[in-house]
């Protein structure tokens, strides 16, 4: 089932979710649900969505990421997308997708730094 492929882990004060390479729709939908519940439960500074393994990001997945980020923001958190592959970045751009105000970073490490700095301001 979808949820078995997704795990939310808490590192210090940050939530981290790693997406599987080719997530199906139920997995993508489960992401939103799991993230929001975990935000409520752990009250973290923010969320890092690790997509470094993802090799297909279609508009449904992309839309879910942006929506989830907006919801996290409404709950007082910050979302950072980490590790987008070059081929995925090229495809997303040509598809016409923009990630709006969602932060993007090269890897999880930089995501952690960004979230830590974000809160010092």
């Amino acid at each position, binding site marked *: 089932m979808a949820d078995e492929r997704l795990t939310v882990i808490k590192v210090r004060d940050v939530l981290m979710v790693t997406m599987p390479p080719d997530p*199906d729709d139920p997995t993508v939908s489960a992401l939103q649900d799991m993230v929001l519940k975990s935000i409520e439960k752990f009250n973290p500074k923010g969320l890092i969505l690790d997509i470094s393994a993802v090799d297909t*990001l279609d508009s449904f997945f992309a839309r879910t990421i942006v929506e989830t980020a907006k919801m996290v923001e409404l709950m007082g958190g910050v979302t950072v997308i980490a590790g987008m592959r070059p081929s995925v970045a090229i495809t997303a751009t040509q598809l016409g997708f923009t990630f709006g105000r969602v932060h993007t970073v090269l890897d999880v490490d930089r995501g952690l730094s960004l979230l830590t700095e974000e809160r010092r301001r």
Partner: protein
Amino acid sequence: MIDVLQGEVPIDDESHIITVRKSVREVATRLGFGLTDVTRIITAASELARNIYTYAGTGVMRWRVLDTGAFVGIELTFEDRGPGIANLGQVMQEGYSTSGGLGMGLPGSKRLMDEFEIQSTAGLGTTVTVKKWKKK
């Protein structure tokens, strides 16, 4: 070794979008497309398969290997007998959506592929054919 040169994947369930992506990945990789092109082709296929699932409920994707001598190509045809598209011009515009989506599926898929053709008749269904070429 005999290469399979065509095939089809039925689309009548959400999970078949993944089946479409897997089949397309296999064919595109076998033809020797680079990683970025493989990603473009799979993503376009995912958008078009999702359109069938969302708007028509059921349909089929057919794939075919093309060979001109100098170029090898992949052709994907997405066919459904759904409600069809009455306003094709509008649908091909960026940001137009009737489903609450982002409205980038069709124009976006067109940009990701080398060739794009759409035929639709209201009440009869829609057929979208896309192609991607690669120099041998």
